């Protein structure tokens, strides 16, 4: 099987997909935008259909349409915060409906579409492979080289802005990298399941890791193993590679989650919690300070600046605040 040229190409593409999808996925999960990969995948369906309709390479049109869509999601998210998930939903539906419509117009059947939706071992052509390698290297260079900057933006966007980072640019970079990764992964896992490969290895890794760096590295390793094992299984069992890869990745998650829970429990038994110290101190009630010898009676027009304070008015007097209380004046 490893002598077959299409299998060699599929395995190389799978290796690179397994590395890049979790690399970008780590940043998406950290930003709590796990479903962004899904949204981009759906938009890319329209891109593929556009390629088939116009006779252009589907990979090229998919990458372009995915970048446009990812940028649109990012801009909508940045401008109108509340409607971010609605925008994502609109793009989901628009992407898949547009794709099916255009495929119909192109006269291509469901079989062609299926190879893009769920991956296929035979769709990676030699020229595709060069593009996959070049794009994967570019994604990894940015994802690792700009790691500290991307980490800061995903961890705490406001703080990142105050360190002078160009946050909007970095957010767009993440969106574009995610779009490129989706089109890379289209060949092996397919557009409908690509997001699983971005999220599941990260979720698996964080069952056992504590640092961002080790989560990133472990997720990439899990992605590579799932992709290569999935492609081999897919060849032997003659099923769609995308589904096989995702089912393997999910099985890995179940194992890691169980193991992680056991390890944590054992660690907890060995090191019991230190004695709890009181966490919050209850503030003392405000003291009632009577202004000593205050002959002046404040009125609405006595000339002292007035400050509204709850249900009454304070008067600023020599840097103190005085408030009427019965027959005397209080310091407030």
């Amino acid at each position, binding site marked *: 099987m490893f002598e077959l040229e299409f299998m060699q190409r599929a395995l190389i593409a799978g290796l690179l997909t397994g590395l890049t999808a979790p690399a970008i996925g*780590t940043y998406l*999960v*950290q*930003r*709590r935008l*796990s479903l962004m990969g899904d949204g981009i995948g759906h938009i890319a369906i329209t891109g593929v259909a556009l390629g088939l309709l116009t006779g252009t390479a589907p990979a090229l049109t998919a990458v372009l349409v995915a970048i446009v869509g990812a940028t649109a999601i990012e801009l909508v998210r940045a401008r109108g915060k509340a409607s971010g998930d609605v925008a994502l939903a609109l793009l989901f539906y628009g992407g898949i409906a547009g794709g099916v419509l255009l495929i119909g117009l192109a006269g291509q059947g469901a079989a062609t579409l299926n190879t893009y939706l769920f991956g296929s071992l035979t769709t990676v052509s030699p020229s595709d492979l060069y593009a996959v390698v070049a794009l994967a290297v570019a994604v990894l260079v940015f994802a690792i*080289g*700009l790691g*500290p*900057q991307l*980490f*800061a933006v*995903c*961890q*705490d966007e*406001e*703080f*990142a*802005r*105050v*360190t*002078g*980072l160009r946050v909007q640019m970095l957010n767009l970079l993440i969106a574009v990298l995610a779009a490129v990764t989706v089109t890379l992964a289209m060949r092996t896992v397919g557009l409908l399941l690509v997001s699983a490969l971005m999220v599941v290895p*990260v979720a698996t890794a*964080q069952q056992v*890791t*504590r*640092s*961002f*760096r080790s*989560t990133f590295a472990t997720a990439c390793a899990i992605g590579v193993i799932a992709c290569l094992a999935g492609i081999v299984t897919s060849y032997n069992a003659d099923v769609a590679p995308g589904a096989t890869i995702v089912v393997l990745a999910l099985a890995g998650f179940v194992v890691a989650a169980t193991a992680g829970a056991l390890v944590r429990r054992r660690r907890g038994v060995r090191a019991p919690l230190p004695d709890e*110290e*009181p*966490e*919050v*101190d209850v*503030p*003392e*009630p*405000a*003291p*009632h*300070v009577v202004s000593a010898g205050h002959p002046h009676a404040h009125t609405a027009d006595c000339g002292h*600046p007035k*400050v*509204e*304070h*709850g*249900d009454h008015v*304070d008067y*600023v007097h020599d*840097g*103190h*605040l005085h408030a009427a*209380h*019965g027959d005397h004046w209080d*310091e*407030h």
Partner: protein
Amino acid sequence: MTPLEPPTAPKAVQVADLSVDLGGRLVLRGVDLQIRQGEVLAVLGTNGSGKSTLIRTMVGLLPAARGQVKLFGTPVPKFRQWDRVGYVPQRITAAGGVPATVAEVVSSGLLSKRRLFRPLRAEQRAAIDHALEVVDMADQRKDAVAELSGGQQQRVLIARALVSDPDLLILDEPTAGVDQASQAVFSEAIRERVARGTTVVMVSHDLGPMDALIDRSVVLRRGRIVYDGPPHASQTHAHVHPHVADEPGWLS
């Protein structure tokens, strides 16, 4: 307490006739404020008085509808020396969707000094260790922030702001929901910075042990400054909490 500065030194913060509009509502109205270098200023006021809006505008997170803010003499939109500013945002948690260690979070504070595509230099690693020692978190540097208590997470955020050795430290509610041990650690860390001439601006409901460090307090009410002058105990506590006359425990 305030070190002498030459009269020509630019003010650390200059706020001139600042109005800020949040979703069509004027949250700040014509605020004027000058903060000298080395000064320690508390911004007080009730919820919704515009405290956080004021300091979020100072660091450029919100645009000014009218007027302007200058940091070290440069208007904020053109300000580029962000390594001179340490910012502690108002946060409930320091954790994101993926685990991250204390040291990793603190290292973000050095980004204003780092070039792209370069690893941390040795002295930058030393700065991270030092900042963690200042907030008494050196032993937890490899722990995941999500597993720390609220007070410890807040200490990590303070270390992140201190790690770049800033000249101006801006803190938004650093003591909210923080245990007393952590409050004492903060005030010690801030005291050390103040001794080195750092300007400090902090927003708070309740200053706790930091009370003693304050040189000057500003009280905001409905987006306007209603008091600007020396702090005194009655103000830092009773003043910012509206109370009702028949509150239980009210002595009269």
